[in-house]
Every structure is written in structure tokens, then in C-alpha cells.
């Protein structure tokens, strides 16, 4: 990111007071998914019966165009399983809202890849959480590595330039960073790595999967060395206290409700993609006067744009670097929001985690196996797809 002219206060301080429209808007189009990743942020699996219709999605896009939201990050669930997905992508780009979408690759056929390569306004992000099938499939499910690689091959063969390979960093793939970078180079893609959050089903596996303290340092060092060529969604700002201010590229702050937010498949607006919980629900686009009104006036968002208490972190010399870390990571591990991040690099998170704490119960779960533990089928389905979520 480049900057204009000199002026105080800093951009971070400006951003903490909020913007007229989000810079980075995530829109989960569906909770339906063909996979069941163990760390799914949105606990996806089954389609929600209240999912926004095509018309309702188009109305949101019209509003985003009026607000000059430059692009949306579309995810899910697996967004491409919505029958109107490509129609919505075309509608958005025709209305000056660029699209970056995340996919596990299930629908990225050679034909779709060619179609994507023809548009300047669509960016594709393939999710992959291991540099080989063994590490990846343990998290994302059997066959998911092969599916992602096939999608990357199809994109590359269609001459789609600069796809993103999106990796959630876990204890089992930090050692594979160089392999991921090589893989990105092989497909003419860019590597994007993000932080594992204890959100959604991630709460169940966070203890075993989040990188160890040594691995956080390893990750930080790797980022400082390779930061210019690697995207991070600015998600590792909790690590910035490991080095000199500014050593870590990107905007090192929590943007929840200030510069980022999430619209979920039923139109609920949350402060950030990692905070799908009623505590961070600002409103619903259908029942609360539209997205623009929620963004500008929701009490939750106005509260987040007020100066936040640093709490237990106030006396820490690194607060200016990490700014207390990730709100969602604290919330879902049962830590106070005014206090250290569970992965605080000064070790205060470990101490805080050792104390008595109540982790919040999830308030939305579309997982397949949990929601429908048992189901008796007395007659065979008319068509195989009637039994498939996609």
C-alpha cells in the first residue's frame, strides 16, 4: 500500500474511527459445502433455508456499488455450489464491484477457468492447508488436495494470471512454507497465508492445530524475509511485537467493524469473518434497513469505532505493535477482549489461557454431521444430487 502526503494522525488511528464504507468486505454466499474442514470458520456444511435469493444478493451488490465498495471477498461454505454463483459474479463486476472468491476448487473446470481468465475483475483464491495430500487432507478431507491442485492446473492452463493459493497456518504446515511458495511459483500464483482462528469449528481443533510459540517465531521470521511477495490478509498483526515496528508488511490492526465486516448467507452482518456469533452481530440487511445503514449506524459498529480499552495490555511495551491482537481469537478462547491475545508473543496469552475461563457456545452451526446425527432413509432418493449438499 502506498501513501499520499504527510499528516497526523496516522492512518491506523483514522481507520480505528471507521470509514464511510468497508475496505474489505467478506460475503459468505452459502453455508453449503462439499467439504467439512475441521477448522471451518463458519461451521459450514448444510445450506441455510433462509439463504438470500438471487434478487436479494443483487440488491446488496447495487448497494455496494453506491457505497463504492471496490471489491468483495466471496466465500462460504463453498460459494461456487450456488446455482446462481456465476450470474452473481457477472452482476457484481458489471456494477463495478470486483470479486475475489475463495473456493476449494470443486467447480474450477477447464471451461470455468477459461471464462475466469477472460475477466479483469475476478480474482480466484484456492484454499489449501498442506503442501501435500497427507497434511492437507487431514484438515480439509480426503481428496481435497487433488481437487485444489486440479483447479490450479486448470487455471494455469487457461492462462489465468496470479491466482491465490490460500493457506491457513497450522502446526503441521509451518514447516512447508517454502514448499507453498514453490507451488505458487509453479502455477504462476501468489501465496496467501492467514492465521488459524478458534472460530466456528476451529474452536474444536485450535488447541491441537495452532502453531506453537517456536513456530510463531519461525513464521514471523519467514514473513519478514518473504513479506513482499506473500499476502497475509494482514492477519498476523499479533506477531508484530516480535520485531521492530513496521517490519511486518501490511496494516497491523484489528479492522473489525472499522474497515472490515462480514455479510453471511442469510444477510446477517458481523464485525468480521472470524466472529460469527450473536455477540458480534450488527444487524441483518433485510430487516435493519440495508447494509449501508448497518455499516454506518449499528450500535455494535459505533462501539467498535470508539477508543478501545487496552485492559491488561495497557502497561505492555509492545501494545503499539500488536494492539492487543485479535478480538475473535480472544472471544472464542474465553479470554477478556481487553487483554492479551491467546497467541500473545510475550507469553501473556499462555498465562491467561491457564486461568479459569468459559468459552462461548457457538450460536450458528451448519455442520452436516452434528446437525443431522442420524437420518433414516426409507425410500431411495429420486436423484443422487438430492442427497448431496452441492
Amino acid at each position, binding site marked *: *500500500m502506498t501513501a*499520499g*502526503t504527510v499528516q497526523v494522525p496516522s492512518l491506523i488511528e483514522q481507520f480505528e474511527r471507521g470509514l*464511510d464504507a468497508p475496505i474489505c468486505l467478506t460475503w459468505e454466499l452459502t453455508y453449503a459445502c462439499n467439504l467439512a474442514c475441521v477448522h471451518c470458520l463458519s461451521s459450514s456444511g448444510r445450506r441455510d433455508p433462509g439463504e438470500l435469493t438471487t434478487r436479494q444478493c443483487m440488491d446488496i451488490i447495487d448497494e455496494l456499488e453506491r457505497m*463504492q465498495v471496490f471489491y468483495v471477498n466471496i466465500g462460504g461454505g463453498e460459494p461456487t455450489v450456488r446455482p446462481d454463483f456465476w450470474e452473481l459474479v457477472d452482476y457484481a463486476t458489471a456494477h463495478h464491484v470486483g470479486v475475489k472468491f475463495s473456493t476449494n476448487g470443486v467447480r474450477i473446470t477447464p471451461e470455468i477457468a477459461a471464462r475466469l481468465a477472460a475477466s*479483469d*475483475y475476478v480474482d480466484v483464491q484456492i484454499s489449501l492447508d498442506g503442501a501435500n495430500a497427507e497434511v492437507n487432507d487431514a484438515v480439509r478431507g480426503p481428496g481435497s488436495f487433488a481437487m485444489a491442485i486440479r483447479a490450479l492446473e486448470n487455471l494455469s492452463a487457461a492462462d489465468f494470471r496470479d491466482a491465490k493459493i490460500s493457506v491457513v497456518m497450522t502446526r503441521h504446515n509451518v514447516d512447508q512454507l517454502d514448499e507453498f511458495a514453490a507451488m505458487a511459483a509453479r502455477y504462476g500464483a501468489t501465496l496467501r497465508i492467514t492465521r488459524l482462528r478458534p472460530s466456528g469449528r476451529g474452536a474444536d481443533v485450535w488447541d491441537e492445530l495452532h502453531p506453537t510459540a517456536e513456530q510463531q517465531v519461525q513464521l514471523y521470521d519467514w514473513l519478514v524475509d518473504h513479506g513482499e511477495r506473500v499476502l497475509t490478509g494482514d492477519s498476523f498483526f499479533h506477531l508484530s511485537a516480535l520485531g521492530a515496528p513496521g517490519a511486518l508488511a501490511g496494516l497491523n490492526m484489528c479492522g473489525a467493524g472499522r474497515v472490515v465486516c462480514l455479510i453471511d448467507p442469510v444477510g446477517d452482518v458481523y464485525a468480521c469473518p472470524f466472529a460469527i456469533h450473536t455477540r458480534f452481530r450488527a444487524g441483518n440487511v433485510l430487516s435493519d434497513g440495508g447494509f449501508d445503514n448497518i455499516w454506518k449506524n449499528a450500535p455494535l459498529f459505533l462501539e467498535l469505532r470508539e477508543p478501545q480499552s487496552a485492559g491488561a495490555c495497557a502497561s505492555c511495551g509492545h501494545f503499539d505493535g500488536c494492539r492487543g491482537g485479535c478480538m475473535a481469537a480472544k472471544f472464542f478462547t474465553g479470554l477478556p477482549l481487553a487483554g492479551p491475545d491467546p497467541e500473545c508473543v510475550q507469553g501473556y496469552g499462555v498465562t491467561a489461557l491457564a486461568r479459569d475461563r468459559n468459552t462461548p457456545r457457538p450460536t450458528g452451526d451448519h455442520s452436516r454431521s452434528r446437525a443431522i446425527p442420524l437420518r433414516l432413509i426409507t425410500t431411495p432418493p429420486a436423484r443422487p444430487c438430492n442427497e448431496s449438499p452441492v
Partner: protein
Amino acid sequence: MPEPFDPARSWRLHPQVAVRPEPFGALLYHFGTRKLSFLKNRTMLAVLDALGKHADARSACRAAGVADDQEEPYLRALGMLAASNMLVPR
């Protein structure tokens, strides 16, 4: 490759760049390079608005109310925008 920035030439925003005014200045987004930039004050936004209507970058600064002895940071910022292809010669 972006053209080296010459303040004596006439410049304009790249046609794929969108500008969103904000209380602190403005956000710029380039749909081609998918890069985001920030203008840190409203004067800089006025300079950009004036660019397309003036024969060169210096007169655009004047039109936006930037005096001769204050133009240096504005020209430098325009240079950064030209280097990232946000501005192109007219």
C-alpha cells in the same frame, strides 16, 4: 512499465482506478493491479481532481490551493501514484 513522473507533463487517473472520498482523504483502488492506495488528506484529493483539467501537475497543485513552496510533498505523492500505475500520462 509506468512512465517516470514528470510534473511538467499532463497526467490523469488510470481508467481502471476508482476513487472513494473518506473523511481522512480518499481511497484509491486499481481494478487492474488490484492495489489499494490512500490519500492522506483532502487537498491531495483536490490535486487529483484538478489533474485532468490542467496542462501539467504543477498547475493542478496551484488549482487545488497548494502554494509553490508547499508543492514538494504533493508532487512526491503524485510520483508514487504514477510509479504504481495509478496515474498515467494524458
